[in-house]
Structures are given as structure tokens and as C-alpha cells.
């Protein structure tokens, strides 16, 4: 299905004089801006934005939407991203006028329902984490990491300890070392052992009086539960450091393992993954941070206080790291997380993780004969297969497999991550997929093994475009439309 509404840009569809009249007439005396504002600051013309009628805008964007795969239209086993079903009831709840139309500087007395909801959410997340205090402020998982690391820096400053290093396993997400650098720390890589766990010898060698924090993702990015977690935490604590748990993979262990019980001092959640907030094409997410009691004083301000007569915002926290962002947090995302946890309850959350792990193990079992899983035979909520043998035998890469899967109507797994598995394909089916969907995905992979190399190298064949030239995009960056932009 092709038409110019999708393939042309807004700027090419623009037709002067066709934009809608949206705003009302002025009901107060109207004077020209020059009577209010200094002439040298006034724009002679409005910005050169495109002009389109409402029907044209709708047709353009709806056609654009149809050029995306999404959870609501396709199986989306993008490893590490937990692309589960996004319940519509959560959207309806979060979009209630009594939530959507709230201004952050309204008097607290006029937002008591919201504050109660957020305060309850903090408590529920603390319970799931096995920790004592929660901030909902961070805007995303990466900002949650940064928040926690800034708290760690403030904690050691408060204790007059000079610690410069953050230790991070080689399997970690790129955000971990990037957050460490942003918080002013030096990132030190710790190896994984052949089983995919943190290499305890390497950890011991790198732990010292300079160690501020050890960041661990558990289950890790190989989809494995690091069974040494307690020992790792003890080692870090013995060296005087703090343990940070990257909660990216909490979907595997809800109600089964609590990071606080494993010795973690702080962690973040990804509510847009674990608690089913939609991913929005790349945000908005949220990154609530849970901490143990000894770190609570350092949480960002404001905190929500429950006191007699109602909820209030507390700014009087002398040891706080300060603010991480304007206002309070990504409320729309947090309300969806609240609605999800209230829907599931304790039993439901546990079942979510059980089924996520069952689905992943079943799919692993179905595909491991096609694509080896080096760290199998079992996994938690996801697994990492390797296309290395295909590469050697037939020159078919992980990317070729990923691209061909698109033709079968499946979003591709995450490819080439984690970095410690060669030709990695990281598959996370989530709990909201049927057995039939998993079977058909496995069958598609099997059929791909029998397809000619040339067909795979040229895949995908049925998508709106074929493989784009990414090198050209980077070498000759065209980052905006101009009147002479090539409209080929």
C-alpha cells in the first residue's frame, strides 16, 4: 500500500493558505505587538512552518503510523525491552481529566487523589524491590541510574570517603558506563565468566578502596540469573562499596526475588517495561529508584509526605542530591504502572514472571536446534542465541536473520547485544504471547535456515523499504528537510 501521504514529507505536502483556523477571536482589546514589545526583538514573519489542512495532517500521520511495527500489531520479541501488551484500561485511567489537567504548581490540597496514588505506588515499588524508600522522579531508566549514582557520590561525600570507581560487568547495557561517567565516576569493566555470571576473581581484583558502586543487572543481559548475587554483594560491601541493581529485567522475578534481599542497596525500575506502560516509539518511560534506609536522605526532592490531614511535598531534605528534572516525574507513565500493579496484585505479578520465564524457556527449547544458545539450556525471561555458526557456514549474519524475520511478520530480536556473545540475537517473548505465536516464530526461523543465502542477504523483501544505507546517512548527514532536499 503506497501513497504520497506517507512517502512525502509534511513540508512537501504544505500548501500556503490551507491551515486550519484553530484559535478564537480575541475578546480583549487587541493591539499590535510593537505596542508591547521592543521592535528589535519582534519577528517580521512567523517561523517558516508548513501549512496543511486538518484532513491532510491526519492522512499523513496515519499513513506514517502504518509504516511501523508495534506490539498491538505484531509479535515484538525485542530482547531487553520487554515489549509486552499495554493494557488499554491503564490508558483510560491515566487519561482521566482529573489526572491529565493537573498543573504541578497547584496547591497540594487540590491534588490529594494524585498524591495518594503516587505515595501508594512508592510503597508498592518498595515492597517489590525489598527496599525502604522510593523516588518516582527520574524520567527514564537511564536517568534512574544517574540519580542513584549521584546519590552514591553524595553518600560517600557525606561520609568523607573519596571513591572514584564504578564497576560494571562487560554484559551491561551501555547506559551503565555512560551514567557512571556523567555522575563523575570512572567506569571499570568486570569480566563475565564462561557461564555468563560475574567473574568473581576479576571482581575481587578490581574491588578496592576506590570502589564506590558495583552495578549489576540481574537477571543479566544474557537472560541468566546470577546465582552468586549474594556473594557479589558481600564482596562489594566488604570493600566499602554500594550495590546498584539495574532493574531492566525485573519482569523475570516479580515476587520471586527481591533485589533488596539479595544485598542491593539501590535499584531502578523500568515501569514502561515491567509494568506495561507503552514504549511510545522510544519514550516517555520512567525510572523510579528504590533504596535502602541508609541512602534515603539523599533521594531527590521533592518527596511525597503522608501526614495528618493529607499528603504534601517535602523540600526540606538537606542531604538530598537536589532535583533531577523539573516538577515531579512522568506522571502519565507512573499512573499506568499503578493501574497495572493494582490489576495484577501479588499473585498476578508472580504469574507474570512465571509465564514470562516459561514462554522464554519454551521458545529457547524450540529454537536452540536452529540457532545455538551458548549460555543455555535454560534462561529466565529472555535468551541470547548466536548466529555464529550460520555466519561461518553460510555467511548468513545475525542481521540477515533479523531482517528476514521482518518478512515473516515478526519484529526482529535485539541484535549484536550483549557484546560478549558473537552474532547475538536476544529474544524476549514476554508473558503476553500465545504458544501459537511462539511456535510460528520458531517455524519461521526454521524455514529461514532452508532459504538461499542471497535471499537472506537481500532481506527484507516485503517491508515498505529495503535495507537503508546507514553509512551514507552518517557520512553525509541530512538531518532536516530543506527546499532542496532530495525527494527521490
Amino acid at each position: 500500500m503506497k501513497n504520497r501521504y506517507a512517502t512525502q514529507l509534511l513540508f512537501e505536502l504544505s500548501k500556503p493558505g490551507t491551515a486550519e483556523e484553530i484559535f478564537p477571536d480575541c475578546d480583549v482589546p487587541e493591539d499590535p505587538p510593537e505596542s508591547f514589545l521592543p521592535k528589535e526583538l519582534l519577528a517580521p514573519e512567523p517561523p517558516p512552518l508548513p501549512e496543511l489542512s486538518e484532513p491532510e495532517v491526519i492522512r499523513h500521520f496515519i499513513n506514517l503510523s502504518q509504516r511501523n511495527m508495534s506490539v498491538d500489531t505484531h509479535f515484538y520479541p525485542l530482547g531487553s525491552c520487554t515489549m509486552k501488551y499495554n493494557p488499554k484500561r491503564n490508558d483510560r485511567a491515566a487519561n482521566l481529566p482529573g489526572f491529565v489537567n493537573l498543573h504541578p504548581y497547584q496547591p497540594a490540597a487540590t491534588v490529594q487523589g494524585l498524591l495518594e496514588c503516587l505515595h501508594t505506588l512508592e510503597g508498592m515499588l518498595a515492597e517489590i524491590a525489598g527496599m525502604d524508600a522510593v523516588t518516582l522522579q527520574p524520567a527514564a531508566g537511564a536517568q534512574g541510574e544517574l540519580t542513584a549514582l549521584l546519590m552514591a557520590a553524595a553518600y560517600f561525600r557525606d561520609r568523607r570517603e573519596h571513591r572514584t570507581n564504578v564497576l560494571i560487568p562487560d554484559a551491561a547495557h551501555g547506559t551503565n558506563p555512560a551514567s557512571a561517567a556523567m555522575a563523575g565516576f570512572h567506569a571499570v569493566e568486570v569480566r563475565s565468566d564462561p557461564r555468563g555470571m560475574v567473574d568473581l576473581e576479576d571482581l575481587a581484583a578490581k574491588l578496592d578502596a576506590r570502589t564506590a558502586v558495583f552495578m549489576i543487572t540481574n537477571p543479566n543481559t544474557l537472560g541468566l540469573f546470577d546465582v552468586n548475587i549474594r556473594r557479589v554483594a558481600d564482596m562489594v560491601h566488604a570493600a566499602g562499596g554500594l550495590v546498584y541493581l539495574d532493574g531492566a529485567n525485573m519482569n523475570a522475578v516479580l515476587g520471586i526475588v527481591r533485589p533488596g534481599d539479595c544485598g542491593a542497596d539501590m535499584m531502578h525500575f523500568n515501569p514502561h517495561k515491567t509494568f506495561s506502560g507503552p514504549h511510545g516509539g522510544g519514550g516517555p518511560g520512567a525510572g523510579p529508584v528504590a533504596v535502602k534506609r541508609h541512602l534515603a536522605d539523599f533521594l531527590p526532592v521533592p518527596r511525597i509526605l503522608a501526614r495528618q490531614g493529607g499528603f504534601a511535598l517535602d523540600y526540606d531534605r538537606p542531604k538530598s542530591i537536589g532535583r533531577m528534572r523539573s516538577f515531579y516525574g512522568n506522571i502519565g507513565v507512573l499512573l499506568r504502572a499503578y493501574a497495572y500493579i493494582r490489576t495484577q496484585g501479588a499473585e498476578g505479578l508472580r504469574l507474570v514472571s512465571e509465564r514470562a520465564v516459561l514462554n522464554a524457556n519454551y521458545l529457547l527449547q524450540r529454537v536452540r536446534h536452529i540457532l545455538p544458545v551458548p549460555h543455555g539450556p535454560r534462561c529466565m525471561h529472555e535468551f541470547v542465541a548466536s548466529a555464529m555458526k550460520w555466519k561461518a557456514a553460510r555467511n548468513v549474519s545475525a542481521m540477515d536473520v533479523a531482517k528476514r524475520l521482518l518478512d515473516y511478520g515478526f519484529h526482529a530480536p535485539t541484535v549484536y547485544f550483549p557484546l560478549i556473545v558473537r552474532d547475538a540475537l536476544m529474544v524476549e517473548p514476554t508473558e503476553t504471547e500465545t504458544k501459537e505465536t511462539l511456535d510460528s516464530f520458531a517455524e519461521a526461523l526454521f524455514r529461514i535456515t532452508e532459504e538461499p543465502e542471497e535471499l537472506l542477504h537481500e532481506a527484507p523483501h516485503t517491508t515498505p523499504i529495503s535495507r537503508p544505507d546507514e553509512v551514507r546517512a552518517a557520512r553525509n548527514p541530512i538531518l532536516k528537510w530543506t527546499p532542496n532536499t532530495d525527494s527521490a
Partner: protein
Amino acid sequence: MAYLPQSEDDIQRMLEAVGVAAVDDLFSHIPPEVRFGGRLNLPASLSEAALQQHMESLAARNTGTDRSVSFLGGGCYDHFIPAVVDFVASRSEFYTSYTPYQPEVSQGNLQALFEYQTLITQLFGMDASNAGLYDGATATAEAVLMAIAAQSGKRKVLIPESLHPEYRQVLRTYTANVDVTISTLATPRGRLEPETVAKQLDAKTACIVIQQPNFFGCVEPVDALIRAAHEAGALAVVVADPISMGVLKRPGDLGADLVAAEGQSLGIPQQWGGPFLGILACREPFLRRMPGRIAGQTTDRNGRRCWVLTLQTREQHIRREKATSNICTNQHLMAVRASVYLALVGPHGLRRVAHLCLNKARYAAKAWTDGTGLRLAFDAPFFKEFVLRAESETEAARLQERALEAGFFAGTALGQWYPELQDAILLAVTEQRNREQIDALAHCFACGRLRSPAPQHAAR
């Protein structure tokens, strides 16, 4: 239990295939000392119907700007959101997709980002835009970090008190462990004075941050300020209000090096402060220091125009600790909302909404200072917000309290951020307010003044 589509029979067959007897066996390798033996202490699960009632009862205990008349601003505004914006943003294909890792099945999102970047450069007159950051405050912090990274040896940053206090707080948090000196410039007259600023700019100054219009609503002499910065060899970071671009000169046309902005005004609901949209745009020389995602145009194997994420060697998933920032996501759905808004209102709609804000704010400032005991705090020109001072702190709080009882959110008290402005209130008037509402609040202010002092309640 919800959203689990496996039947009992499916589960049995899956367990058999895996080779275990029970689901619990899949967790048996987890050492008992870290297994949670109990049951999470969470409220009982709710059916969909019960959840809806529960959420409605929570929402009913909030009084939003749909039930009160809001004159609140300070970085979050009640601007009109056309139905088309909500409609497009609720399309599953946008809101349940993710990062365009596979461009062949993400052209909708990628093209939307390329259009967003173009619209932002058009709006602010800049060379390049990224695909979005968290909010205006973090975008400002990232812009300052870019300015520092771009000039070795320069570690001083000038921040005026007329910059949003929360943005200043975020900048301090972000730079707590970075070797940077933040100097605050006083703005006792509500805005910066180029001659005074020039004295503070020196060879060590990496950048000055100028908010336009500033936190007090005043229009800064941004042209002269940018000139002063450049004469001292410093960069100019302008924090701009997107709606004001309907009437004010674009920062890019005045020589700004970096523009940061809060995109909430562009079709994003207030939602008690988030999710919002951080806008970041720059001049060409700073492009490769930009944090976050950027979409670029290229061609596919058949020569068709298409879009991909590009210049990714700046980003955390490639560069790890050497990345320009740790940011991963781009508030994509909010960027799409901003694009739809700008595409729909167009240049003339933007000019219209800016004129409405300007004229209504001007009218309100006059009405609210006429026989109310309130006066304008600053004599600088303003756009859609302004600061009023009462005869005392007590009087300011009392007027706000009375207005609240009468159904108005009559601005934000500034004393929490500015000790010298304990008697001052920041008020915003958008195109959403009408003359009747403005007059009614004027009446409320005037009557409030005549009454004997009521018992004190803290407004916030």
C-alpha cells in the same frame, strides 16, 4: 491474573517441551537465600471495572484546570490541544512501538522524527535538532554540558536568577561532580542588563544561559546579551518558549549557539508536570556533541528515500562511558505530539496563539492591578506571564487563598525560590482564558482587599 493467554493445556505442553514438571522448576537454580519466600504485601487485585471506579475516585479528589480557572505557568501551561494531536498519539502503531532499531519496519517513527527535527529548526532558526530529551530542565543541563565540552579550559557558566529556579537546581544536580563553576547573576529588575553581564563574562566563561521570555515572563534583551557573550568568546544558550516564536525573533536569527526548550506547550497535556518534551537544537559546529537520538535521511537498496537513526557513535549503546550523554530514549511520543501540533497550527496559527497570549496577558495585568493593591513587580515588557506584588506576604497569600475558594488558580508564590519576593505571585495567561475569567479574578482580587483579614492558610 491478567493478560496471560496460555491455557492450562498449553502450559503442560510447554513444560513437557522444556523438560520440567512444574513452572517452579524453572526457578530452582536461584539460591534459597535470595528467593523471596513470602507473598508481596500489595493491595488485592482489582477487576477492570473496579480499577476504573478506583481511578475515577482518585481523580475526583483532584481539582484540575478543567474544573478551576488556571492562571498558573512557570514552565507548564494550559494551552489548547487540538483533537488531532490526541488522536494521532493514541494510534497503537505509534504508542506501542519502540526505538527504531529496525528501520525497515519503523519508517513511520523515523520519518516523524526527521519531520520533528526539521520543525524544531524552523521554529528556532537553528541548524540542527536532536529527536528529543526528557524536559526543558534536563535539556538546559545537557546544553550547558555541551557548551563546556566544546571549549577546553573554560569551566565557568553564567546563570541568571531569571532562569527557571528548577532548571537551575537540575543544572546544579547534573554538574555536582563535574569541574564547573556556576555563577549566578542577580536580576533585581526582572531581567538581565547587558552592560552588567558584560562585566561578568571573561575568558574562562564557557557559556551564559538566557531564558526568553524568562521565568518572570519578562522579555530579555537577548540580542544584546548574545552579542556580549560572543564578544567575550563565550557561547550563548537560549532557553526559549516555543509559543513565543509566533511573535519574537528566533534565537537562531540572533546568533544563539544552543537552544533548549520545554515542548509541553506544543500539544502536550499538563499531567502534573510530565511526561514532557526536552527540545535541544544547535548550530552546526556543535552537532557531533549533541546528546540523544538523531534521525537522518538516506536511501534504501532500491534508491528510495528513507530514514535511519544516525551519528550513533555519540550514543551510550556504542560509546558507553565516552558517550555524549547517558540518555537512551527520546520522549518519542511527545515529539510526535509536538510535530502534529506544529503541522496543524502552521505559521499563522502560531502567530495567532502568540498574539492572543500577549494581548490577554496585557489586559489581565491591567485589570488585576486596578484597585486591587497589586502592582507589577517589574517594568520590563512581558509575553504571557508576569509577576505581581501585593502589599505584604500575608496579603499575597490571602488573595491567592480567596481566589482558590472562588475557583481560580491565581498564580504561583515566588517566595519559595526568591526570598526577596515573598509578596510576589507569578501569573500566566494563555489563549485559553477569556475576558470574563480575567475580569472575575480582578473582581475577586479587588473584593479580597476590602475584606478584613481572614485566618491564614498556607496556599501550598
